[in-house]
């Protein structure tokens, strides 16, 4: 069971969303309002447990009077605002952003993106066969997780999760700039030489599968990864007294990865190395 704290009551504010009156608590983002109204605005870099970085720009919407489009995920709703989520202008930008991304990185393990590419009629191929791609080799330098930056959309979520928003280990950051910007540890060293404590909180927030469990990476390579054959069981971590919630992903009676519920008010999806990776003892059946 997950307990959701109610928090202090907030004032409601009114604005128009696609021509209809919308009422949301003060402090809500346009995206919150869209979701409450059942509108589907695509998002990639937005993360439910992190402050929005608004870097991907697929969630852009039109706000009356604004010179440019605004990111729904981070712009707070203001009283009297007139927001349109589905104009030709907003759709055009979303489509181009999806094309730019899909032409430069591998989105094959990004949930939902295939649907959006179709919905927006995005044609990533039209930039030609010579369009620059990331073309990164997966970094396999430890037994716990793999960094495959060919799939990275540079959403900064792993950096924020490893840094001051959750883990405070500051093992990774963005290095370089422009198209050459990459997530890296200092001097681009292997992860094992970094400050990483293998909490895996970065994997938890990565929206594209650029960061993944070594177990998942190996199974995908072997062609045995099959999400439809997996069951998920949420239980309590047995290592220490904190009692974090773990979700065990099990395929063929083997734990293949461990996540944690984001709506848990204590851990918000974060774990430590033991809860995240220390599951071998469960499977030790000798």
């Amino acid at each position: 069971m997950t307990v959701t704290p109610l928090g202090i009551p907030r004032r409601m504010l009114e604005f128009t969303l696609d021509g209809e009156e919308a009422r949301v608590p003060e402090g809500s983002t346009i995206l919150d309002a869209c979701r409450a109204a059942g509108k589907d605005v695509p998002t990639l870099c937005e993360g439910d447990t992190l402050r929005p970085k608004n870097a991907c720009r697929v969630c852009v919407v039109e706000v009356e009077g604004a010179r440019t489009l605004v990111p729904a995920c981070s712009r707070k709703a203001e009283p009297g605002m007139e927001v349109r989520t589905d104009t030709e202008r907003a759709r055009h930008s979303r489509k181009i952003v999806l094309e730019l991304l899909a032409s430069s990185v591998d989105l094959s393990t990004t949930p939902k993106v295939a649907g959006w590419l179709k919905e927006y009629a995005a044609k990533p191929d039209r930039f030609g066969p010579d369009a620059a791609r990331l073309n990164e080799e997966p970094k396999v330098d430890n037994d716990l997780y793999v960094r495959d930056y060919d799939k990275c959309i540079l959403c900064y979520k792993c950096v924020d999760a490893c840094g001051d928003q959750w883990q405070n280990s500051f093992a990774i950051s963005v290095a370089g700039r422009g198209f050459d910007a990459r997530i890296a540890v200092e001097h681009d060293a292997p992860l094992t030489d970094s400050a990483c404590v293998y909490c895996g909180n970065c994997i938890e927030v990565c929206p594209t599968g650029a960061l993944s469990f070594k177990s998942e990476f190996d199974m995908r390579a072997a062609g045995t990864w099959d999400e439809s054959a997996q069951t998920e069981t949420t239980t309590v971590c047995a290592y220490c007294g904190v009692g974090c919630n773990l979700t065990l992903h099990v395929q063929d009676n083997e734990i293949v990865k461990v996540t944690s519920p984001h709506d848990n008010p204590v851990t918000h999806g974060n774990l430590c190395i033991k809860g995240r990776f220390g599951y071998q003892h469960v499977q030790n059946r000798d």
Partner: protein
Amino acid sequence: MDLHFGDSKPTHEERAAVDALLGPPESSWEGADRSDADLRWARGGREARDRRDLLLPGLHAVNDRIGWISEGALDYLCRRLTVPPAEAYGVATFYAMFSLKPRPATVLHVCTDLACAAAGAPELCAGIEARLGLGSGVSVERSPCLGLCERAPAALAIKAGDPLRTAVSAPATVEEAVLAASSPGSAPEEPPAALAVPQAGQDGLMLLHRVGVVDPSSLDDYRAHGGYTALRRAFELGPAGVIREVTDSGLVGRGGAAFPTGRKWQATASQPDRPHYLVCNADESEPGTFKDRVLMEGDPYALVEAMTIAGYATGAHKGYLYLRGEYPRALHLLEHAIAQARARGLLGDDVLGQGYAFDIEIRRGAGAYICGEETALFNSIEGYRGEPRSKPPFPVEKGLFGKPTVENNVETLVNVLPILTMGAPAYAAIGTGRSTGPKLFCVSGSVERPGVYEVPFGATLGEVLTLAGVREGLRAVLLGGAAGGFVRADELDIPITFEGTREAGTTLGSGVVMAIDDSVPLPRLLLRIAEFFRDESCGQCVPCRVGTVRQEEALHRIVERTGADAAGDIALLREVGRAMRDASICGLGQTAWNAVESAIDRLGAYE
């Protein structure tokens, strides 16, 4: 914070460079040898973390002394400042002037940007590279605009060591550039800034009247030529009075955004949160722009005085002057001017005996055009990557260090002096209704007398070009720099005011007027502009990070094509450009397509 440091050690030299900036370390917690006391208490932590903003100066210290930043040096700097090494690495790799790989102590930056390219930069580069091959001890780097466009082609040599040596060669020949690189200490001195002001000494100049007239290193000379009368008047008026004058003068920001200065000052002054900061944006990196350099080199005290007035009016006690890393002479002159002003009570605890405390600190940029964007500049000063922040919140509310901040560029600030000495009504009477006062233009390219020109707002483009002596065969004019737009040779009657350019569907931008004659291959020029934006994108948002690359690719494909052969790629450029303008986080991505679009639409490039 759980910091982890590697075991690479700094060399003696690297340690000395960092310690010269930060002082010697006090305990093993920040990189000294371990003492008995260290076993009993831990210092560093919070105290050191407050000095994160010294990261950029620290990186400069090492890079200046050694020429590059090794793992050991970066680690030591991180220990001293309690900065996570991964973050410091991310910051160091953001700036073009730093190297994290070994390289020769001397770097020769050869400008290959718009004005220099037209003046023969490719041949110059090839010649220099032929002379300075491997093993010459010089690394030759192709550089974006060095802000010396009036003397194109330009080269800047930087030789690491203690002291750091620099030399400029412009207009550069292969011999001179090689000489500057091989012995920057004995290279011939640069011509005075006044040489960039063809009008120098003429009557009626308001912003440039002291350039070439005063000795830029003499405070007495500055005062003898009217210096510090504006600050005295400011103290008479009081902060609110100063803001009123500036508001009534109609002054708007000269950096490109054209926001009313008085309104910005008022908004900052009225914030209850303290402290307030003043930031002078002297990170002039728009290709084709060099007016701020000329002002700072020719009349440095004017900027010091203007910053003091702005600080006084907005309730700031500290002003940061963020100076382009490529401006060594401006740096020296301003350092000197600030020290003199401090010694004479014109900066410090009690400015002019009026009980107002104000001081200025110079921060050097390190080669990143994006740091001219105001919020990126704050991040850069604070020791983070120079990535723009999303707005709102706006700087007047949450700017530098999260505090109310007023940011103005050099030219804007210097305008405050005549406003106060002549009074708002007289100032507002100059120019047109919406664009008041004098304006500086950086005229370069195909003209007889390239340089900085001061004209009252309202002059036409043709008049400015006539002043500079436009050469035969003018094909187009690039207004506002790489982020601006082209106009045709038959559109020279456009009044160069904010409203006039807007009506003509173009922009004044930062005041660049670059004359392009028909000997310049337009597609190459456009490619260079695209390349510039691809290089300078911070990489934060997708439309700009990938869009600038896709645009450059498309321009490459059509560089020798026209008509139907180019049509498909032009359509692609338009679609991508529209999304970049609409969905990028900051002005860089939003304007990156402007110039190319205008060349297609107005000049018929690729037709």
